């Protein structure tokens, strides 16, 4: 039987269970880095009045040696005011259990939203290594772009693409895979991305069925040959995009240059209101979308 003393235990247990069971889409497509040690800022709404409380870091440009580019820091607070009288009954037990799960779903949804918003921004975001100097990718280059330079200004210099401008189709997906397979480092060294499979195809709901047909079918659509894609793409992640539902990405998950860095593990806490009649439950997620200055491991398609 529950009591006000063990309500916190119930909520935290079901919260942890919910985090594990809900299944983050961000974790399926990108990297999740726990406890980066990065500072977080807890402030009011962001300057744009965005979904969460946000604060960008300082605006100075990043050097090439930076490991990640943090676009902003996010601390998400989800408050759930439960109309639960703090009296020990079986009903309150279930209420606390359910509240913990709801908080977990909110926390995971927050991380997912941050991640996929970040993905959409890659088509318009300046590349962290933009510039004409050694070790950079060229002037005015976006994170996903054509003609990204490697070994710029040195022997063996060349360019490569991680951007396609085609709606999702069999030929377009094949092109994306081949771009990954032949991708080179900034020193011009082949990286063999995706050769062992484990690629993730990210699409909007409108392309979910097509993605399934392209990836899961035994035979390819055009010539009924063995499906080249089947053993390379191991997962399809569907997420409702905000600005263009024709966008799609192919990500080598084990080498993903994008993901979510957690400042601390998601937590749930509980307190009674001052009148002692209600419980206030809060889940807290401190996390940030990151992109590596080295874009290896992702190809995107957007018809700009």
């Amino acid at each position, binding site marked *: 039987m529950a009591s006000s003393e063990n309500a916190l235990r119930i909520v935290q247990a079901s919260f942890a269970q919910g985090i594990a069971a809900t299944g983050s889409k961000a974790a399926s497509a990108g990297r999740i880095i726990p406890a980066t040690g990065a500072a977080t800022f807890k402030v009011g709404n962001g*300057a744009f009045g965005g979904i969460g409380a946000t604060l960008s870091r300082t605006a100075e440009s990043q050097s090439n040696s930076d490991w990640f580019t943090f676009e902003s820091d996010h601390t998400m607070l989800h408050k759930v005011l439960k109309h639960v009288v703090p009296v020990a009954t079986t009903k309150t037990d279930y209420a606390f259990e359910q509240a913990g799960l709801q908080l977990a779903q909110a926390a995971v949804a927050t991380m997912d939203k941050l991640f996929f918003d970040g993905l959409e921004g890659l088509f318009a975001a300046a590349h962290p290594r933009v510039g004409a100097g050694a070790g950079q990718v060229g002037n005015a280059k976006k994170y996903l772009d054509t003609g990204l330079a490697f070994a710029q200004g040195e022997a063996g210099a060349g360019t490569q693409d991680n951007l396609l401008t085609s709606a999702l189709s069999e*030929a377009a997906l094949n092109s994306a895979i081949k771009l990954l397979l032949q991708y080179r480092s900034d020193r011009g060294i082949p990286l063999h991305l995706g050769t062992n499979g484990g690629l993730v195809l990210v699409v909007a709901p409108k392309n979910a069925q097509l993605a399934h047909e392209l990836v899961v079918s035994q035979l390819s659509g055009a010539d009924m040959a063995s499906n080249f894609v089947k053993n390379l793409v191991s997962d399809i992640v569907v997420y409702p995009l905000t600005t263009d539902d024709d966008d799609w990405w192919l990500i080598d998950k084990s080498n993903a240059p994008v993901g979510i860095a957690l400042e601390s593990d998601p937590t749930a806490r509980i307190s009674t209101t001052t009148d002692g009649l209600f419980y206030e439950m809060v889940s807290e997620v401190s996390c940030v979308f990151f992109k590596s200055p080295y874009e290896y491991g992702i190809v995107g398609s957007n018809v700009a």
Partner: protein
Amino acid sequence: MSKKQAPAAVVAGIPSGSLVMPSEADFETAPPPASDDDRPGRVAGLDYTAWAAAVIDLNAPADRVAKERARLLQKGYRQAGGSPLVSGWANPEVWVIPRAKYEANRAARLQRLQDAVASGRMTESALAREVVTRA
């Protein structure tokens, strides 16, 4: 042994084994210059510094092809003529747009992202740090 027989008449659809060689003069013609157009998805012969290209897979269902054509037209692309080759594509249809207009479209996409963040539909994750400005 009788003298050498002429090749048998070609039966439709079956190779006869006959061989027609290029002339010596054909080898004097300079080969076309090498390019990086064999990158997957690249349109052979297109000057990517002046143009951007979008490619439609004509093997896709007709409704998808029609929708994609309308979408490209709306975005300012125009269909390229001839029979262009696209690396890795068996049945492509190439649409092109001047590079300057393409960059303007990308800037418009950035503006849409900023608007979405401003209205609360997206988080600031969508914007690169240099775009995030504070009052």
